[in-house]
């Protein structure tokens, strides 16, 4: 098995996990923040009560758990694949974020926004079709 093929065998499942967990985390964060209310001030005195509501919100913690799962998958990927490959490849999640926002949050997504999200995904697919590792392995620090 070639090195590239071996890299793809472990890279693709981890990317799929990232594509589901990352957007799900953001959807839960959005749900939590909408119930807390608009953050309109940057003053500490106004942010403290908001912070306490954020920290006690179940949806925020659910979102954080999803994003932590995403983060671990992402870190594992970064040990062998280049950052400029991983970031675009996992970002097929832009399509799933639109679908999940519509299904879970009931956000009305205009045709123009669907077009924008689709264009982003086309760009992502083009970027994802390059080799996972383009730089020489660094010497151990």
């Amino acid at each position, binding site marked *: 098995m070639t090195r590239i093929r071996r890299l793809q065998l472990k890279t693709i499942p981890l990317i799929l996990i990232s594509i589901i967990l990352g*957007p799900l985390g*953001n*959807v839960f*964060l*959005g749900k939590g*923040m*909408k119930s*807390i209310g*608009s*953050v*309109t001030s*940057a003053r500490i005195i106004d942010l403290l009560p908001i912070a306490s509501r*954020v920290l006690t919100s179940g949806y*925020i913690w659910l979102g954080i758990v999803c994003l932590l799962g995403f983060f*671990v998958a992402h*870190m*594992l990927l*970064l*040990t*062998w694949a*280049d*950052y*400029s490959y991983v*970031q*675009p490849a996992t*970002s097929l999640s*832009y399509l799933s*974020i*639109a679908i*999940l*926002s*519509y299904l879970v*949050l009931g*956000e009305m*997504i*205009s045709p*123009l*926004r669907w*077009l*924008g*999200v*689709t*264009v*982003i*995904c*086309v*760009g*992502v*697919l*083009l*970027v*994802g*079709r*390059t080799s996972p590792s*383009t*730089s020489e*392995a*660094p010497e*151990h*620090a």
Partner: protein
Amino acid sequence: MREAVLFFFIVVAGTAGELSVSRAMKGVGEVHDFRPKSILRFVLQSFRLPWMWVGIALMSLAFFSLLAILSFRQVSFVVPVSALSYAAGAFGAKLFLGERISRNRWIGIAIVCLGVTIVWWTRG
């Protein structure tokens, strides 16, 4: 203005944070073993690297900015616009990690930026 500042933190601090984490991860080396014990050891090992902590600080700033913007904007608007971090990521990876960015990859990034522009028009 408030929105622009928050997006700036999400894109620039978020990307700089990921680049720092990537730099730390390359120091840990390629992962071959996926047993929970090995993964835990790998996580603990990564926390000993200074770049990991720089990354965590920057990504925290990006995270709280994301929470603030999600309090008044739709998820399906905020997340696609934050895809601007593609351009930031490619420039950063080239400058700070010495990664080579192929011509095809640059074309992909340009298309992503076009998509972000279209989503921005739906701001409403």
